[in-house]
């Protein structure tokens, strides 16, 4: 138990130091009838717009959405100000 907790903290610390949490806000659509949404999603890979788009496209396509544009990438500090706008699409995909 002690060892497990230790390894967990270690892993978390490693993850935290090696790669800060990365988020992206994006715009997506669905056709016929046209539906739009603005959402926030967590990015696992490199923290830039292009790789975020590459990562988000298949995730959104799985539920029928088409990625229109990745607005920006940001750290956890930017989450709060976008939470309201994203609504139900806040960290959904």
């Amino acid at each position, binding site marked *: 138990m002690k060892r497990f907790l230790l390894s967990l903290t270690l892993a978390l610390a490693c993850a935290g130091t090696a790669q800060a949490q990365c988020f992206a*806000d994006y*715009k997506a*659509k669905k*056709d*016929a*009838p*046209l*539906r*739009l*949404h*603005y959402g926030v999603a967590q990015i696992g890979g490199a923290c830039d717009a292009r790789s975020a788009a590459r990562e988000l496209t298949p995730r959104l396509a799985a539920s029928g959405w088409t990625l*229109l*544009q990745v*607005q920006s990438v940001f750290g956890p500090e930017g989450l709060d100000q*976008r939470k*309201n*706008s*994203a*609504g139900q699409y806040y960290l959904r995909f």
Partner: protein
Amino acid sequence: MPDNTTSASDIRRTGGRLVIAGVGGILALLIAAALLLFITLPDSRAFDARVEAMFIENADLTGQAEIKLLEILAQSGTAFADTLASYRLVIFVLLVFATGMMIAALVFLILLVGFNRRMAQIERAGIQVNSLLISREENTVYLNNLGFKLTDAAMETMSILAEARMDDDVLSGSEIEGMISGRSAADCEEAAGATRIKRLRDTLGNQIVSELLVKNIARRGYMLAVEKDVIKVL
């Protein structure tokens, strides 16, 4: 010297060619108009694309209410596109009607030209018999509703000729004489039949010419029954 004769078959052939060309031209016009109609009128996707572009271009259009409004905008565009589609159908139907009218007008125009030429030819050719009615009680023959009184003998000849014509037969003078007198044709003279024909021609010809050309106005005299302006003296 130019060839100034036209035959009826000539007119029919050129008329047919004109009709085909005209109908083809009208159909081509219709198809071009329909294509233009279906290409230029925007479909519902055009509205969606415009709203989508608006959504992408404006970075701060991120609020939920704003996005909802954009969606409503796109939906109203789609509804408008539906009305456009019905307009398009109406316009197309009108186009089809207009084409039908144009084709009908063209065909009637060609027919009219044909009839005019034919009328001119008939006028030039003189009398053309459209109906021949033999009335035995009145001893009268009606040619195109012009009545001509005949003698009994001429009436017999006329009737025999008419019957023979209906059977597509040609009668010799002795056969005519034989039929009228009731003897066998071998016993009759050719000249007797020829005389009958001559008398028929004389009475009928006289009356036709007096009806069509030299008119007799009672107690006043005689005059030509033709228009003044068609007379030319060389």
